[in-house]
């Protein structure tokens, strides 16, 4: 897997870069895009590819290891832990979307929009992604 295409980061966000990396790994493991045994880029590779301080990367990896999503092997690349053989059921995966939607819901309220308008927009966005023309 190529380090710079697999991970992306947003600067200017209220979310620190290491958290963004953690969320991306979580989502990809949940969806099965990353499966058990698959190797992830080394701290060095990813730091160079993203031009990010190496401690930021190792902080993300250490927390993912503590969570049990990644496993460290002496002298070898880190990989997705064995217990993540299959994608999680959709019922679990949908929960990963909750923080993003909570955030969107707060904005809908601040903008004083009716839920029907917000839902219509979300459906429209989903449809454009499914047709491959975001």
């Amino acid at each position, binding site marked *: 897997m190529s380090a710079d295409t697999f991970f992306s980061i947003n*600067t*200017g966000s209220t979310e*620190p870069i290491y*958290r963004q990396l953690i969320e991306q790994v979580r989502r990809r493991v949940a969806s099965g895009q990353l499966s058990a045994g698959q190797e992830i880029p080394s701290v060095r590779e990813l730091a160079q590819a993203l031009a990010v*301080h190496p401690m930021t990367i190792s*902080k993300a990896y250490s927390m993912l290891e503590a969570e049990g999503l990644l496993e460290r092997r002496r002298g070898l690349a880190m990989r997705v832990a064995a217990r993540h053989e299959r994608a999680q059921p959709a019922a679990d995966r949908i929960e990963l979307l909750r923080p993003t939607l909570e955030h969107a819901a707060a904005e809908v309220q601040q903008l004083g929009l009716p839920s029907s308008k917000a839902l219509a927009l979300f459906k429209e966005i989903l449809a454009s992604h499914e047709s491959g023309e975001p």
Partner: protein
Amino acid sequence: MNDLISPADPRGLTLSPGISASTLQPEASVQLRGLRLQYGRQQVLDGLDWQLLPGQVVGLLGRNGVGKTTLLESLLGLRDVQAGEVQLFDQPLDQLDDALRGRIGFVPQRAELFEWLTPAQMLAYFRSFYPRWNVAKAEGLLSRWDIARDTPIGKLSGGQQQRLSIVRALAPEPDLLVLDEPVSSLDPVGRRDFLRELVEQVLDRGTTVVFSTHILSDLERVAFNVAFMARGRIVLQAPLDELLEHSRRISGPASAVQACVSAHRLQTLASTPLNNGGLAVLGFGEQARSLAAAALRIEPLSLEDLFTGITQ
């Protein structure tokens, strides 16, 4: 290899304004105490304390004219201060020997590069002053960054001159790298190349780096720590991750905001009265993440929000 370049824990710095000079720390790369400098009636450095530990990469932020260049030049002894003490690698600045001076790299805001020389001649000249000089690295960077070796420097573009200035600073493999707006004339591709080079320095050598910039997106990537300069001092230095996670903008009726700040033992980074008679506080502390109060509005902050608030 000496112990200087072993990566230190950059989280070991105090989070409160000012710096506590711990005696337990290993040799600090930079230690400033009580720096004062006044131009006319303007107090540019007003008892400034600052410490950079080995291996830290610190982004220096402050508004235009606040004195970032003055601070960086004072730190290097290029500008005399009226009071205070500068130590580099645990040595007073005026007692630094050539070997220690050779461990410092500096990229000034405006490169002073001997415009009549070619890049090849200029680098050969500088090489003679340094105990260590990585020829392969300098050559590699010249090629990678498309700098014409044999064109007089005065005829190079502003961006190429800036890149050359970076090559000159990196070639001696410095243990301390000081950069003053190093990317101001570079395009986004050039900036990314430069950031990769910085990351490489950190990976390979554990270089202590301090750089000033107004391009916050660059700083977010490579700076693990950020230092904010305002009113002649470093008013806050902290790991950027912690700043983003543990600071919130709390706004609402003044008494409720103040009660919330003190109940959750938050440090007030900035405080602004609102038009409607309310108050907005940038609060920072462990408990900031779990704040919830019906009467208050609580929002997370980006680096730009923090910059605007803290340097006002």
